[in-house]
């Protein structure tokens, strides 16, 4: 499956965080890479959405929507997403 990028989940992230998040900076807890959320690798076809580090492919965040409620797991971020 071809990866997309964080631009593809801008709407879902806006719905959760209440503002534009693709320009926010993510810090990978695995390799320390930093960059805008827009540059993460995103896979939409799992049982949920997975965003991975563009450098080491570690899972950064997972979004799962069930019955209208979106659950967000920021398991792979070393620190909270920093807005700009």
């Amino acid at each position, binding site marked *: 499956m071809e990866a*997309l990028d964080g631009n593809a989940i*801008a*709407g879902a992230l806006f719905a959760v965080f209440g503002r*534009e998040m693709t320009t926010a900076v993510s810090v990978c807890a695995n390799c320390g890479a930093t960059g805008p959320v*827009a*540059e993460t690798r995103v896979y939409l076809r799992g049982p949920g959405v997975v965003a991975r580090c563009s450098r080491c492919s570690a899972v950064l965040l997972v979004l799962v929507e069930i019955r209208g409620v979106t659950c967000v797991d920021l398991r792979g971020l070393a620190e909270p997403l920093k807005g700009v």
Partner: protein
Amino acid sequence: MERTALRGRLTWQFGTVAGVVEETARTRSIALELPDWPGHRAGQHVDVRLTAEDGYQAQRSYSIGSAPEDHDLVLTVEEIADGEVSPYLVEELHVGDSLELRGPIGGYFVWEASLGGPLLLLAGGSGVVPLRAMLRHHLASESDAPLRLLYSARSLEDVIYRDELMSVPADAEIDVRFTLTRSQPAGWHGYAGRVDRKLLEEVAWPPSEHPLVYICGPNGFVEAAASALVDLGHAPARVKTERFGPT
């Protein structure tokens, strides 16, 4: 965007289809009238949601192909075989129908005249859509930033916005070029073959000119173009990417 950000929420709204244009055999532009549209920036997209009679919903993102200055909001949609949303949008949606969407969305892959240039736009296939919004915004805002668009398509028949892009007056500021990767018509004067380092050396401004680069297309196209530019010495922070693909 500012208004959307201040509101702090993204609301679904209905637009009315004001017109459709068949761009290629598989691609269609849909012009929408949206009474409650806050305006957008070139490069942004919307989420479109279809609801079946039984309540089942499917949602996809589509880039906005119109400039902020244009009257209608235009989405250009490529039909994906076996897709859940695009076949309806390309084949069944009619003028006067309603379409539910939310937006504008995205703040990263955005160009505004105030960002200046030189502006290098690299399009692969339907990745041309947000870049066409940037081109139209450039024209409407009378930006003096040099703009160069390189559009890679399989054949001339696959070129979206063909008449418009081929009739952009070549002047000192705007330069639109094409490369056809699979077949070229007789007498073709554009490029042939994929976008690679050699072609980018010819088309891109040198890194010393610090061009601002936007690349949009399928993952393979974006990766190849972005890594070739970085190899050539362009600063990664000046190279913005957006990947398109069937979802």
